[in-house]
């Protein structure tokens, strides 16, 4: 007897359809699984056998061959368990073949017959061509995000068999999650003083400009960066689905509704490897931190402590918004359009901000600055010094402007950028600058002075103009860029001169 069940396996952040073919024949009793399964997948044999027994389904001792087609594609994970178990039942004649026609099955089996969740439900369901899918009950909301399938959630194998035989009801789908309480994101009002840093956060959020914070320990770099996602608006439905697919594929916990609506925040430790940052692996291509942060914020604290090759691996995603990971067996493309926020000390002793306060030797300082390659440093449109705030202003200073009004300005500025045909001003092509970022006479004179004095490089010029455009958008100023916007843009880029670069 032969049975064929539709299922899917995960490859990068995409699902690939898999057809689970089960053949039962007379002969020496045995169970063979073929079709490039990985270890977790091969062990499905033992889980399925135990789960079938736990569900009270005794099968005669026959020769069982399971083929995972297409057999040239590597299968990974335990998500095929459910399809294998049902395939065996159909092949033995315990279930009618037409009960599973048009049905895709996804889920891992426990030895007690329970059906467990697997990572990547969204891309897996998306890959299934069938009109209906059966998924673990607590993944039902996630699976329903794709929206093309009738989603059935099951908790045990026995329940599924009963439903397929028509002996029992399908479980009620879980009620759609109500409007979620917005997850508490830290508020900008906690930041007292720090006018320049606040402005830099606002500009980074509005214009999609990458931000580098340089300051001594305790200056509040992490605190500032943590408040950046709150300034970004909710993800558009398409972006939300993209982010959810990536998070789902990486097995991250998803919000109750299954859909990631808020821009993600990722903060990898500086010990991170290049593969963990950009993605990859040997057989299972896991998305890296840059992809998990897509449409959100990637915060890299202690930027100078990251390995040099890890930092330089960021250059492709920063440029292209995607990252292509190539291995001997496979090559995948992940989305990676994130806002990069770096934080670092000005020098090894950490105190090298104000003139006359550093204890490091010149050699130590230049070695430290050289840990960031010029091309990477150049990607940061905003580079500011964060000074340790005055203790008096911490205790007595007025509260800062809260997140909500700033976020409103950011979203207004983003819609101005959208009207120019880009997602954010940071993506403005160089040839369009003369049109959308025209300069007033005063601003031209100021930029000329900066160029002549060596405080601004030719390459930095375009970036300063984009930042100035964002500043003008935030202030709702139209027409040519004025002195103030250009001056502030210079100020926001030229900060840490100790890194040995012109703006």
């Amino acid at each position: 007897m032969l049975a064929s069940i539709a299922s899917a396996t995960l490859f990068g952040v995409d699902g690939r359809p898999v057809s689970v073919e089960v053949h039962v024949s007379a002969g020496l009793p045995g169970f063979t699984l073929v079709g490039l399964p990985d270890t977790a997948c091969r062990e499905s044999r033992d889980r399925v056998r135990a789960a079938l027994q736990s569900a009270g389904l005794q099968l005669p001792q026959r020769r069982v061959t399971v083929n995972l087609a297409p057999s040239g594609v590597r299968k990974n994970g335990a998500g095929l368990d459910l399809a294998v178990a049902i395939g065996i039942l159909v092949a033995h004649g315990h279930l009618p073949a037409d009960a599973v026609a048009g049905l895709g099955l996804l889920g891992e089996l426990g030895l007690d017959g329970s059906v467990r969740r697997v990572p990547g439900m969204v891309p897996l369901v998306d890959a299934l061509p069938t009109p209906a899918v059966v998924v673990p009950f607590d993944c039902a909301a996630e699976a329903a995000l794709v929206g093309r399938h009738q989603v059935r959630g099951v908790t045990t194998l026995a329940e599924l068999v009963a439903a397929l035989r028509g002996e029992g009801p399908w479980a009620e789908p879980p009620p759609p999650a109500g409007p979620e309480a917005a997850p508490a994101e830290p508020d900008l009002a906690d930041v007292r003083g720090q006018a320049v840093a606040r402005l830099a956060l606002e500009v980074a959020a509005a214009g999609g400009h990458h931000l580098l914070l340089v300051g001594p320990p305790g200056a509040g770099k992490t605190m500032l960066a943590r408040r950046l996602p709150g300034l970004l608006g909710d993800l558009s439905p398409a972006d939300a689905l993209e982010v959810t697919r990536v998070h789902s594929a990486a097995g991250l916990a998803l919000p109750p509704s299954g859909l990631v609506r808020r821009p993600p925040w990722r903060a990898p430790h500086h010990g991170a490897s290049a593969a963990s940052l950009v993605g990859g692996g040997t057989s299972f291509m896991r998305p890296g931190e840059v992809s998990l942060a897509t449409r959100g914020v990637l915060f890299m604290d202690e930027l100078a402590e990251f390995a040099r090759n890890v930092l330089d691996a960021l250059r492709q995603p920063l440029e292209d918004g995607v990252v292509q990971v190539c291995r001997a067996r496979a090559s995948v493309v992940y989305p990676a359009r994130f806002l990069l926020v770096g934080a670092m000390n000005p020098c090894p002793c950490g105190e090298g901000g104000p003139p006359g306060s550093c204890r490091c030797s010149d050699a130590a300082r230049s070695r430290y600055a050289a840990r960031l390659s010029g091309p990477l440093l150049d990607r940061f449109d905003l580079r500011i010094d964060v000074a340790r705030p005055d203790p008096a202003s911490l205790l007595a200073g007025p509260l800062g402007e809260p997140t909500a009004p700033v976020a409103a300005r950011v979203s207004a500025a983003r819609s101005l950028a959208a009207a120019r045909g880009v997602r954010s001003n940071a993506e403005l092509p160089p040839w369009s600058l003369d049109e959308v970022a025209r300069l007033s006479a005063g601003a031209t004179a100021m930029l000329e002075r900066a160029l002549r004095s060596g405080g601004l490089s030719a390459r930095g010029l375009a970036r300063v103009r984009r930042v100035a455009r964002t500043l003008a958008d935030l202030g709702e100023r139209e027409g040519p860029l004025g002195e103030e916007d250009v001056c502030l843009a210079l100020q926001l880029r030229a900060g840490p001169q100790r890194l040995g670069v012109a703006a």
Partner: protein
Amino acid sequence: MSGVERSGARRSPGDGDGRDEDGELPAPAFVAALAGLSGMGPARLSALLGAWGPEEAWGSVLAGRAHLDPGVAAAARGVDAALARRWRAEATQVDVIGRWREHARAGVAVTARGAGGFPPPLLDDHEAPAVLFHQGSLDALRRPRVAVVGTRRCTAAGRATARELGRDLAAAGVCVVSGLAAGIDGEAHLGALAAGSAAPAAVVATGLDVVYPRSNVELWRRVASAGCVLSEYPLGTGPERWRFPARNRIIAALADVVVVVESHARGGSLHTVDAALERDRPVMVVPGPVRSPASAGTNDLLAAGSPPVRDVDDVLVVLGLDVAAATRGRAAPPVPSDPLAAAVVEAVGWQPTTIDELVARLGQPLGRVAVELERLEHEGWLVRSGSWFERAVAPG
């Protein structure tokens, strides 16, 4: 010592092959060769030259007999058989005439202790250098001498003070002695040169052909041509860490008064201070803001009782010079005429200040403050380093 005197040891290697009329190499050629051996510090060199004349000393080193003299073996940093063997191995490789000609080509004169022209303040010093290599004339040191020293990591205010002191001291006829380092040292030299009066002197910790830091190469040349640059190390000696404190003792010994402009709590200029106190030289200190790390060391010295320097007159009084030469009382620094600009300059004050602090002090929007700062920096009222602004002492 007698050998040095006998051969009239102060001499510049002139043209020709460096030999004098009777075809013999002058004594300083041997002193230069001895000074270039590894492990040869002032103590050992003095001991060697005390035991033999330069030529005989070179002979004993070549023969590996340097440790046999009881005076040399028992010197502060004695010489044992192993070191003597090492010296012998090195000395056989040294081309004494060639090295002497190198000094001639570089315009470096060699003056051994005991020879005529050796600076008197160094003669009876307990750690006196055995030899001085110098470019320019040691006559610069005949005037009253004030060492102006301080940190390399200084503030704009410190730089301005050092330059002003250098200028005013030179104008009052004082030889400004310093170390040609980055920061305060270099500024003091610049000021002294700007006065165009008494010539400055510099004591460096490298061979005179190894300019360190490189950025000071032009200043180095100017000091050498106006006054003199001296070192106790022969040509080719690189900047090694231990040579800097050793150099500082010469600065302290040369100076009649040591003035520290800015120093961190643990800084190299405090070595100069210790060396000066050991030699009973008065140490004076420029007070700094209590919050400035660059003034932590100097303020500690003040608390320990060093007299403060408010302007050049405080130093001139200690030197016993006529204070009328300089002007008592400083004119209030100029302020821009535009009211907002004046308020910004006032708000920056005399400490490194960030825009954040200025926004809070002035109550003005960030954009306006930024534009004003840019203009003031361009016009020279303010000095910018990174995100910090400092007030320029002499605008323009």
